[in-house]
């Protein structure tokens, strides 16, 4: 006999195997998911979920696909949260603090409650990355927010109405495009290709018989 637990989906009780994730428990209960289910592997942020264990004070948050059910878990999914995403032209923006003041000024209204960090389903230090963004330290903001799946749970808990995932997204794009060091060998290679330097080699390979290619492949030199 399987070990079963009681869970409450949107308040309604179901008995489900204790080994299941919240997502699989919903399906076990009979739900055919459309919303609130994406990659099922913890990368896409579609399955943000809020829960409370009966008798406990604390409201907890998680991704339904990455979290095992517990007995007496009250579960509400948060399949969508209205984040504010500002429109900008990545080729034509300031790369300093000014850009945050212009696009996401509400970050300066952060009251330091740290509810975002406590809520993060990825266990990121969200308030810290917002602090970096406030100061225009985009490299640090990018690093700290890198694993964000943009589920929006942080924003749902924010008294200042900050859209943290979008702030991190902007910082990462600025960092990737403008602040990280340029890659010379990439620039050089693209120039060589545009110059047609490899065309003859490729044409020669395309014209080879499968036997010739097999010979070439099976005896190729592999970098250590």
């Amino acid at each position, binding site marked *: 006999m399987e070990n079963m637990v009681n869970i409450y989906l949107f308040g309604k009780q179901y008995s489900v195997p204790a*080994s*299941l994730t919240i997502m*699989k428990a919903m*399906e*076990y209960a*009979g739900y*055919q*998911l*459309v*919303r609130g*289910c*994406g*990659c099922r*592997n*913890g*990368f*896409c942020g*579609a399955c943000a979920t809020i829960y409370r264990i009966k008798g406990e004070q604390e409201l907890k948050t998680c991704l339904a696909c*990455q*979290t*095992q059910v517990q007995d007496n878990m009250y579960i509400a999914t948060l399949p969508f949260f209205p984040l504010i*995403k500002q*429109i900008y*032209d*990545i080729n034509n923006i300031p790369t300093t603090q000014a850009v945050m003041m212009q696009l996401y000024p509400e970050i300066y209204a952060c009251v330091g409650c740290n509810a975002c960090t406590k809520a993060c389903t*990825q266990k990121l230090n969200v308030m810290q990355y917002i602090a970096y963004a406030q100061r225009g330290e985009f490299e640090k903001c*990018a690093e700290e927010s*890198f*694993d964000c*799946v943009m589920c929006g749970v942080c924003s749902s808990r924010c008294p200042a109405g900050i859209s943290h995932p979008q702030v991190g*997204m902007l910082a*990462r*794009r*600025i*960092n*990737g*495009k403008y602040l*990280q*060091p*340029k*890659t*010379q*060998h*990439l620039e050089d*290679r*693209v120039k060589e*290709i545009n110059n047609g330097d*490899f065309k003859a*080699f*490729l044409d020669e*390979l*395309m014209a080879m018989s*499968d036997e010739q*290619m*097999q010979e*070439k*492949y099976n005896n*190729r030199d*592999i*970098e250590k």
Partner: protein
Amino acid sequence: MYTNEEMLASIKKVEANRAANAALEPERMTAEQKDEVLKTYHPDYIESEFEELKIGPNKGEKVPHQLADLLQANSRIDPSKIDLDNPKYDVDVLIIGGGGAGSSAAIEAHNGGANVMIVTKLRIGDANTMMAEGGIQAADKPNDSPAIHYVDVYGGGHFKGKHELVAKLVNDAPDCIKWLNELGVEFDKEPDGTMVTTHGGGTSRKRMHACKDYSGAEIMKTLRDEVLNRQIPVVDFTAAVELILDDQGKAAGAVLMNMETKEIMVAKAKTVIIATGGAGRLHYQGFPTSNHYGATADGLVLAYRAGAKLLYADSLQYHPTGAAFPEQIFGALVTEKVRSLGAKLVNVDGEVFMHPLETRDICASSIIRECKARGKGISTGDGEGIWLDTPMIELKNGEGTIEKRIPAMLRMFMEYGIDIRKEPILIYPTLHYQNGGIDISVDGMSGIENLYVAGEAVGGIHGRNRLMGNSLLDVIVFGRNAGRSVAAKYKDVTVGKLTLDHVNKFAEEQKAAGIVTDIVSPKLLPDYARKAN
């Protein structure tokens, strides 16, 4: 957390051999040895799992049963009930699918001045691209070249790739990395800007570029942000359920369905791009999958019913390292980068039984052989697995490497009390990638005029086996390529009278072949809801 006695006993052996195993350079297999292990153990060679198609452009060719069922199933619509004269949307470019390929195509088509619209049955970014962990290949280092990359791709695909598609893939690769970097994608770099690159299975040069082990997520999030910045319309939770042709047989739009309300709508378009991705959620041969929720081969079904030819639809990729334990993450991807960084595959007795960087099909087949034929797997309760000795990574590259280079893997196993820095993990092959798909020419067009295809829905780029890091590459290369092709094309397109006659014709063909089925397709989503009885 490992509590099972057998597992703990086996871990002791793995630990005892770790230093010696880490130092070992296992031999690579000969061409003959590879051939043998594939033919004996690769799931693609199990004939009973395939059947001949009875109708359609690939009639007489073999595909997996689950795909045959969908390719030869009934339409979701009754054409006589669809009002084609008053389309809800009328655009230059209709893109079906909001993953990496669809988004890249949208950006390039938008650059070309086209009026573009994306429809996606889930949300933009709910795609396998988001889940790609390990990296993206490009021959941009001085010791490498597109020609060397070509040999790896073509040979790794068992000499079955389409030459011109392989050439396009490798030749455009460096420019795609540059394009992504200029959109703001954060690649792992040395302080002087040199890309940090590693090997993947079957690569002869270290050309795997990565964004930690969130490579696909970083790329997908950036592409999505760019699509939104350009205010390209994204109609989400809306599936394409049938292509629309015009009276000259050219693609001219799609019948759409709201996933929640089931409302049917018509989108008219001068050009259509299918970017619907893969098929892992069809669970071929009962395998678990690393794929996202919507990977149900919809694009193949739509195109096939409209008359487009498929290529290598019988060729699937089983990723060697799906999580085998704990059951909560059964089938989830453990990135190949774990092996790129030095972790080896170890059996129940603590022995390394193969080179960890053979191509994926060889690697998966060898793992299956080690378990099924040699009895050297580790029981997981429901099934079995092989150790992937992750602590070797830090033995080789120093403490802190795992947190820095593969944080997603560390997080995923830590949820279940397994610290991959100190303990090995159990893996077994998982259904990962659709090698085949819709046949295209080098401009991205299928056999149907004005119907383009990009990303995993395409067949022929990777032959019969894809290398790590070439899928993220292919969605960008062929996504951009399709976007540019339609941008060049749409201005000269005059759409004729819209028709769904091909749907009726297909139904007649079905009837004539004696196919009686209550299955409807495209499938759209897997059905995981437990039935009451």
